[in-house]
């Protein structure tokens, strides 16, 4: 029996104050992943007044089983690493809000941050570190059957598909991992891959090929998910021939990568084609006083240590901006 304990989850939590709405912060940080939390540590230590807004603490790291490439830890589970980040931020005391998402931002000399629940906060500078979220398929049936056959987390939900037929969409690392999780319990697994080959790591693909109950359909895409009360079949179209096949399945796991959470600054900041916020090497965006860091930006390579480093850069640039304003 494993215990995935979040160490220190109960002692550091109290060392923060709620955000104050009639105050203008020097720097307001949006996002509580490695980029946002690192930025927070740098800002506080620079002595600027700092607010931190977090929808879900830890971001993608909280959803990662094990990390082996963050320096200082040969191996650490994601939840534990998040706790360490959090403790490091809260040892200083900070104005903090967790649980609500930012909905929009007004630029201008003083920036305004609007929450989904109607609250508004102001700051001289903003750091956008809202990271990435799972991409959805966007096909008919996906929303309707969510939790009734449509799933996004194979470690969570694989046991419910024991003895059943399932589809896994996506042929990258997360798709291959999901297929392996499912192949252990399911009757049959059909992988649907957009490209002509799987793009996951060789180690994983070798592991997958040991299972006899997995088949892969290449150069194909899911066009709809169908059923009455729950998923019964998945329509898959061959991208070359245009032929649509119905695959009988009681479940479909969507593992098609991530999209940047840049919706809140769309139309305000310059984004690239992938929807990532474009930044220069000092983390400046196209609007003065708004900085961005981590996976939500066009920085090459999306990794914890990269996001943390970018968060540090964004914080230092933002502090300079505030002091020289």
């Amino acid at each position, binding site marked *: 029996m494993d215990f995935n304990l979040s160490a220190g*989850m*109960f*002692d550091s939590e*109290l060392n923060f104050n709620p955000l104050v709405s009639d105050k203008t912060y020097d720097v307001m940080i949006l996002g509580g992943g490695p980029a946002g939390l690192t930025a927070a540590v740098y800002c506080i230590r620079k002595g600027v007044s700092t607010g931190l807004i977090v929808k879900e603490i830890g971001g993608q790291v909280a959803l990662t089983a094990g990390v082996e490439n963050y320096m200082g830890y040969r191996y650490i589970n994601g939840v534990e690493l998040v706790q360490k980040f959090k403790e490091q931020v809260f040892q200083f005391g900070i104005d903090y809000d967790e649980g609500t998402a930012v909905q929009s931002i007004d630029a201008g000399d003083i920036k305004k941050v609007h929450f989904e629940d109607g609250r508004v906060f102001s700051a001289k500078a903003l750091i956008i570190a809202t990271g990435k979220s799972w991409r959805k398929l966007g096909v008919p049936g996906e929303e309707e059957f969510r939790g*009734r056959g449509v799933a996004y*987390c194979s470690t969570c*939900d694989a046991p419910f598909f024991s003895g059943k037929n399932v589809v896994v969409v996506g042929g990258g690392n997360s798709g291959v991992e999901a297929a392996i999780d499912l192949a252990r319990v399911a009757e049959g697994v059909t992988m649907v891959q957009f490209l002509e080959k799987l793009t996951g790591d060789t180690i994983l693909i070798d592991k997958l090929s040991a299972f006899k109950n997995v088949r892969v359909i290449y150069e194909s895409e899911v066009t709809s998910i169908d059923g009455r009360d729950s998923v019964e079949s998945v329509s898959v179209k061959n991208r070359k021939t245009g032929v649509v096949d119905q695959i009988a399945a009681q479940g479909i796991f969507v593992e098609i990568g991530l999209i940047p959470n840049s919706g809140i600054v769309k139309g305000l900041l310059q984004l690239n084609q992938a929807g990532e916020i474009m930044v220069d090497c000092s983390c400046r965006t196209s609007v003065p006083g708004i900085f961005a860091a981590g996976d939500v930006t066009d920085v090459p390579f999306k990794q914890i240590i990269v996001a943390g480093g970018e968060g540090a850069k964004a914080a230092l640039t933002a502090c300079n901006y505030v002091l020289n304003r």
Partner: protein
Amino acid sequence: MALFDEKVKKQIKDILTAMKDDVSLAFFTQEFECFACGDTRSFVEEIASLSEKIKLAIYDFQKDKDAADRYGVDKIPAIVINDKDNNHLGVTFYGLPGGYEINSFLGSLMEASGLREPLKDDIASRITAVDKDVHIQVFVTLTCPYCPGAVSTAHRLAMENKRIKADMIDAGLFPHLVQKHQVSGVPRIIINESHSMVGVQPIEKLLDVIEKM
């Protein structure tokens, strides 16, 4: 064999030092222990050994029918968390809260001891205003990193209002309930057998559903 290794034991012990008041655990098993009952009993015994503030009572589900009824326990293994005066808070775990679920268990334990983060005023008054019997069941798997959040929210609601009860249910142990509610993804939240929600929900969303019932 001990469930907790030395490292986990020390971490849990450290966390428990912040407990405010005593907490009483009522554990339900039976003479011929069910699948998972034995391990779950070791779990509560080990937890109780890590803090003087935790009082443990072990009940036989069949022989101690009164106690089971008092706490609304209808299956085993069940761990009920009560406050220092053994008042029923409506907080139950069906199954062994291992894996990620250790976090919701320790969280509820701390909250039952009186260590609670304040709720926003409007949320607090909405919870107080609930004047019907509400039973929230949260289905989880122990490998689900999102599930403890859903369990904690439900348990917090229970602690704040006597009319609300909330259960964590390990989907792996109660296949008939999984079948009944057609659970194929977790966390799955069932309110009063009739309303069902998929995924982690903010406390406001749960209140929206409860208020409309």
